[in-house]
C-alpha cells in the first residue's frame, strides 16, 4: 500500500490540476456562447480534483428527500413511498415551469472503484483480475447485499479507523483520513480522493458489487478509476454498461466507441431513471473480451413497484387501472394504475398506432416491447411484505428470497499472461474455472464451519469472514482483502414464508461467460422460468408463458429468472450443477466447478 501511494500520488496531483482546468471549462459552449447563469443547482458533488462523488438528496423528479433518523443502519426498501398510482407535480426547474409524473421512488446512489485485484479459486489458486470493487455500502457488499444506498446513507460518508480487510490486526491498516470527531460510518460512500485510492486500489470483487434498486428510483452510479496497480504499464479506461436497459441513451451506455470512458484518476457518474423491473447485469465495456474475462462483471436487478402497493390492493387493477393520474379509486376497476402513466403502461389508450399498433378499438394500441402486459383478469391482492419479480398483476412471480447468481468462467492462462505484462491471446481463450458468483464448488456453499455440504468437502479458501463467509485473498502488499462476497448456498424453509407458507427463492441468473454457452440443471427441485432477459414471460394477450424445467441454458450476456418452490419437494439437500460435465472442474481438479446446493429445511 505504501508503494502504491508512491506510484499514484503524482498521477493524482496531475489529475487535480486537470480537474481545476476542467471545472473552468464547464458550462462554456463550443460555439462560444456562455451560460446565462446556473439553473437550480442541486448538486452535491464532493471531493476534490477529478475524483468526484455525486448523490443529490433531491431532484426535479424526486423533490422530497428521504432522511434516515438512524444513520448507522442504512434504509431499506421499506422506506420507499407506497405506490398508489401516478401523480403529476408542477415545478420550476432551471427557471422553466415543467411538470413531472411521479410514481414514487427516490434517489439512490452507489460508488465503485475500477481497478484490479486478486481472487481465490476453489483449488486454492490465486488469480489476478481487472475488477470493480465497492466504494459504498462496503459492509452490505461484504454480507452479500447490494451496495446501493438511499441518498441520506450514501452521503453519510465512509469513516472508519481501519481499512476493510480480513486478515490484518486492527492498527495494521489504519485509514489516514479517519475523522475521530465524526461518528463511524461503515457503509457511506468513500468521498475523500485520498481514501478512494487508499481503499479502491486492489479492492476488486468477483462478482463486481451487487446493485439493486426499485422502479421509479433515480440511480446515480459513480465510477472512480483508481488504475491497476499490478499493471502500471496500462492506461486502461473503464466504463459501466447497464446491460439490457430499455431505450438506453448512448451517453450512459458505457460503450467506449459510442461515448466516453473515464480515465485513471477520474470519476464519472452514470445517471439512470430505473427501467422496468427485472434481472439485468452490468459490466465494463472496454475491450470486452479482455475486461470481462478478467472479471469486470456484476449483477443488477430492479424491483417492481408492485412491491410497494399497500396491503389489500387488487394487483390486477393496480396494473390495469387507467384513470387519469391523481384520480381516486386506486386498485379498483375505475381507478388509476400503471396504465395511467404512458411511461409505465403497456396498453396505450389511443387508437393511433405508435410504439405498437392498433389492434382493435377495444384493445387500443400496445407497446410491442412492453415489459409486462396486463394479465388475464384475476382477484389476487397485495400481501404485506410480499416481493415480486415483475409487475405481474396476478401475484404469480411472488417469492421470498433473492438469489443473485452470476455464471462466469476464468481462463487461468489468460489471467496469468495478463498479470505478467504480456498481451493475452483471444483465439485460444479457454475457461478452466467455472464460477457461480466468482466461486467454484465447494466454495459456492461457503460456510465451512456450519455446513460442510453434502459432499463433505471443505472449501479451500484460505481466509473467510467468519460471519458473512466473504472470501478474502492476500494481495501483493500482504493484506488480505475481501474478494468474493457471495456464496450461492440456497436455504429454504417449508414454513418460513409469509404466514408460515413454504418459501420460494428467486434465482436471478446472469451469464457473463465470454467464451461459451452454459447450462445449469436442477436435481430434484423443479425450476420455474418466469422471466427472460429482464422481461416477464407473458404473451400480449396476458397469458403467462412460464416454463417448468430441470435446466436452463444461457449464452454470454443473457439473464433469466427462475423460481424454486420449497412446497414442491420434501426437506433435503438438492443440487444445482452444470451438465456440461467438463465444467464440473477446478482447472486440474476434476471435481468442483459450476455447482451449488439447495437446502430445504422443514
Amino acid at each position, binding site marked *: 500500500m505504501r508503494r502504491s501511494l508512491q506510484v499514484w500520488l503524482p498521477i493524482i496531483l496531475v489529475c487535480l490540476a486537470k480537474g481545476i482546468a476542467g471545472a473552468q471549462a464547464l458550462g462554456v459552449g463550443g460555439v462560444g456562447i456562455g451560460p446565462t447563469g446556473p439553473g437550480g443547482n442541486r448538486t452535491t458533488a464532493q471531493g476534490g480534483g477529478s475524483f468526484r462523488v455525486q448523490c443529490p438528496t433531491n431532484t426535479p423528479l424526486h423533490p422530497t428527500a428521504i432522511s434516515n433518523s438512524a444513520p448507522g443502519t442504512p434504509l431499506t426498501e421499506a422506506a420507499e413511498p407506497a405506490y398508489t398510482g401516478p401523480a403529476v407535480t408542477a415545478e420550476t426547474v432551471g427557471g422553466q415551469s415543467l411538470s413531472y409524473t411521479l410514481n414514487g421512488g427516490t434517489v439512490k446512489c452507489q460508488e465503485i472503484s475500477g481497478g484490479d485485484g486478486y481472487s481465490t479459486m476453489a483449488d486454492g489458486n490465486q488469480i489476478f483480475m481487472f475488477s470493480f470493487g465497492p466504494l459504498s455500502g462496503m459492509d452490505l457488499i461484504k454480507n452479500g447485499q447490494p451496495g446501493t444506498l438511499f441518498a441520506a446513507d450514501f452521503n453519510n460518508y465512509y469513516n472508519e479507523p481501519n481499512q476493510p480487510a480480513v486478515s490484518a490486526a486492527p492498527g495494521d491498516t489504519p485509514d489516514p483520513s479517519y475523522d475521530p470527531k465524526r461518528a463511524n460510518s461503515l457503509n457511506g460512500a468513500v468521498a475523500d480522493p485520498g481514501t478512494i485510492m487508499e481503499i479502491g486500489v486492489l479492492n476488486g470483487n468477483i462478482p463486481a458489487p451487487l446493485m439493486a434498486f426499485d422502479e421509479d428510483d433515480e440511480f446515480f452510479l459513480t465510477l472512480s478509476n483508481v488504475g491497476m496497480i499490478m499493471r502500471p504499464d496500462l492506461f486502461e479506461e473503464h466504463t459501466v454498461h447497464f446491460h439490457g436497459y430499455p431505450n438506453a441513451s448512448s451517453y450512459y451506455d458505457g460503450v467506449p466507441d459510442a461515448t466516453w470512458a473515464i480515465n485513471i484518476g477520474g470519476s464519472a457518474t452514470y445517471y439512470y431513471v430505473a427501467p422496468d423491473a427485472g434481472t439485468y447485469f452490468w459490466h465494463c465495456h472496454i475491450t470486452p473480451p479482455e475486461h*470481462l474475462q478478467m472479471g469486470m462483471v456484476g449483477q443488477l436487478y430492479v424491483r417492481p413497484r408492485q412491491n410497494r402497493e399497500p396491503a389489500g390492493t387488487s394487483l390486477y387493477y393496480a396494473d390495469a387501472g387507467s384513470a387519469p393520474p391523481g384520480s381516486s379509486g386506486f386498485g379498483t376497476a375505475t381507478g388509476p394504475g400503471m396504465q395511467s402513466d404512458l411511461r409505465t403502461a403497456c396498453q396505450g389508450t389511443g387508437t393511433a398506432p405508435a410504439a405498437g399498433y392498433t389492434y382493435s378499438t377495444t384493445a387500443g394500441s400496445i407497446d410491442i416491447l412492453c415489459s409486462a402486459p396486463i394479465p388475464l383478469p384475476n382477484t389476487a391482492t397485495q400481501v404485506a411484505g410480499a416481493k415480486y419479480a415483475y409487475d405481474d398483476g396476478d401475484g404469480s412471480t411472488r417469492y421470498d428470497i433473492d438469489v443473485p447468481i452470476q455464471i462466469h468462467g476464468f481462463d487461468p492462462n489468460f489471467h496469468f499472461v495478463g498479470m505478467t505484462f504480456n498481451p493475452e491471446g*483471444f483465439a485460444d481463450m479457454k475457461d478452466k474455472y467455472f464460477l457461480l458468483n466468482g466461486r467454484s464448488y465447494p466454495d459456492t456453499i461457503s460456510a465451512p464451519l456450519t455446513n460442510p455440504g453434502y459432499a463433505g468437502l471443505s472449501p479451500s479458501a484460505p481466509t473467510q469472514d467468519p460471519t458473512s463467509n466473504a472470501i478474502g485473498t492476500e494481495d501483493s502488499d500482504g493484506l488480505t482483502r475481501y474478494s468474493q462476497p457471495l456464496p450461492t448456498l440456497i436455504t429454504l424453509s417449508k414454513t418460513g414464508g409469509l404466514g408460515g407458507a413454504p418459501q420460494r427463492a428467486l434465482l436471478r441468473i446472469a451469464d457473463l461467460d465470454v467464451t461459451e454457452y452454459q447450462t445449469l440443471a436442477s436435481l430434484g427441485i423443479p425450476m420455474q422460468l418466469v422471466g427472460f432477459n429482464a422481461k416477464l414471460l407473458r404473451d400480449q*394477450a396476458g397469458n403467462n408463458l412460464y416454463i417448468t424445467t430441470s435446466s436452463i441454458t444461457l449464452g454470454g450476456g443473457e439473464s433469466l429468472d427462475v423460481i424454486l418452490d420449497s412446497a414442491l419437494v420434501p426437506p433435503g439437500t438438492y443440487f444445482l450443477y452444470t451438465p456440461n460435465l467438463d465444467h464440473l472442474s477446478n482447472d486440474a481438479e476434476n471435481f468442483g466447478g459450476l455447482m451449488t446446493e439447495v437446502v430445504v429445511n422443514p
Partner: protein
Amino acid sequence: MSHENENTQSAITRLAAVVMVAVAVLLTGMARAAVPGITASAGGSSTFNLVASQGYISQPDGALIYSWGYGCATSSASFVPYATGAFCPSMQIPGPTLVVTQGVSFTVTLTNNLPTGVGNTSIVFQGATVTATGGTAGLLAQEATPAAAGVVTYTVTYANAGTHAYYSGTQSDLQIEMGLYGAVVVKPSATPTTGANCSAIGSDIAQQLGGGKDDFRLAVAAYNHPEACYDREYLTQWMELDAHIHKQAQTQVQAIATCTTAPCPTALDVKTEPYHPSYFLINGRSMPDNMDPSYAPNYPNQPYNANPHMHPGDFVLVRVIGQGHWQHPFHEHGNHVRILARDGNLILSQNDPLASATNPARLGGRMEFNTDTTPGQAFDGIFYWSGKGLGWDIYGHTNAYADATQPCNPDANGYYTKNSGATAASPNYYEWCADHNHPLEVNPVGHVGGGGPATQFDPLVATNGLWYNGTPYLGPDAVGRNRGPTPLPPSASSMNPFIESGIAFMWHSHNEREITTNDLFPGGMLQMMLVDPPTFWIDETL
C-alpha cells in the same frame, strides 16, 4: 522479458483499431445496409441461376481466406431494393440473398464449378417444399455434379413468409464452413388489413417518402399480421470460420490441380475437427469491414454489409440467420427485440380472447436483449428505439434559450408524431413528450439549460469514442447548441459527423471472444447501430 513483450495488448489493439477504422473511414463515413438481394429475372421466368465456385474473402487482419461460395451464373440478376453499384459475382459469401414471394413457386439452377476433387454440391432450402431434376441423387438434396453436365434444377415453394436459410446439403460440415450458405427472404403474399398504416407505424418514413425519397423495404410487412409491419430491415448472417480448415482445402485442391506424378490425389480429405475458429463473421465480413457499404468494390466476394441505422420510433425488422457450427448470443444495445417468428413461423398467443376471423391473435414471441443465433435457424424480430423513459430531453430542449424551443405535443401514446401535429421537418419527430424540456445537467452548457439532476464528469479525464457526438443529445441542433459544431477529439475522423450527430449503440456477440479477429480486438461479430435524428435522411444505398 523483451522490450517488445512489454508492449501491452491494449496498445496494440488500440493501434489496430485506429488503423482499421481509419481505413474504413477512407472508404465512406456513413455506410448503411437495407437488405440487398436479387429477385428472379424479369419476364415471368422466376428462375435464379446460381453457381458454386471457389474464391477468396478478405479479413481486416489482412488475411485472404480461400473459400467456396454460391454466386450468380450470369450477370443478368435483378437487384433489390436498389441496383446502383450492385453486383453478383460467381462466388460470394454469403451467397446471393434470394427475394421471393410466399406461395409462389420459383426455380433455382445450380451449376457446380467447384474445383476438381471437391465432388458434388447442393442446396437445402430450410422450410420450403422442393422438387429437383438433373444432377444426381444425394442424401439431403439432389446434388449438382461437377461442370455443366451436372446442373441441378430445384423448384421451390415457401408456404410461409419470413427469413429462411439455404446452405449446402452435401458434406455440410466442410461445405458450409467453406462458405456455401445464404438467405431467402420470403415476402408475404398479402399485407395486413391495417393497410396504409402498415407502411408507417408512427414513423416519419411515409412523410419522407412523400418527399420523393426511396423506400428500401422489400415489403411493408414481414408477415400478414398487423404487428409485422416495419419501416426498415436489416439481415445479418452469423458464421464463425476456422482458417485451418480453409488452408487444408486450399492446399489439397492445389495438389490435385498441379499433380503431375502418379499416383495423384483425386478427392479432398479435409479434417474438420478439432474445430477452432478464430474469425467471426457477420455477412461474411468482420468488423470494421462489415460497416463499409454493401457492394463496396474492395470486397469483390463479400458484397453485403451490416450497419444498421434508424430514426427514433422506426420499427426495424431484424432478420437473423445462424450459419455454421456454433450459437452466438447476439446482443442488441439500446432496447429489446420482439421475436416475431422462427424459421418463418409466426409465434402468436395461443389463447387470445380478442382473436377472431378478422383479427389474428396477438404476439407470443419473447422479448430479448440477447437474441441467440442457432445454426441453420432464422428468426425475425422487431426492434425500435424511442428514448422513452430516460427522464431527460434527448434533444436538449429546455426552453431556457430562444433557439432551444420546440413543441412536443403528445399523441395518444405519448410521442410527438404526425397524429399530434409533427411534420417530417420536425427535428424532434417521435420524441417522448413526457421528458420534453426536462434538463439532464445541473449546470447549463451552451444553449442547453440546467437545473437537471446530473453533474457531468470533467471531460479532461475522459476518453472519447469515434462514434461519440460529444454530447448526451441527439441531432446537430442539440449538439450545436451544447458543445458547438466542432467535434470533440478524436472525432475529426468520426463515423458520426456533425451533420448526422446520431447516437451509437453496439450490436455484437456477447460471447465476447467473438468480437475479435484472430487475436486482434476489435473485430469479429461487431457492428455499430446508429439512431439518427429524424431530419437526417438515411440513404441505405450508401
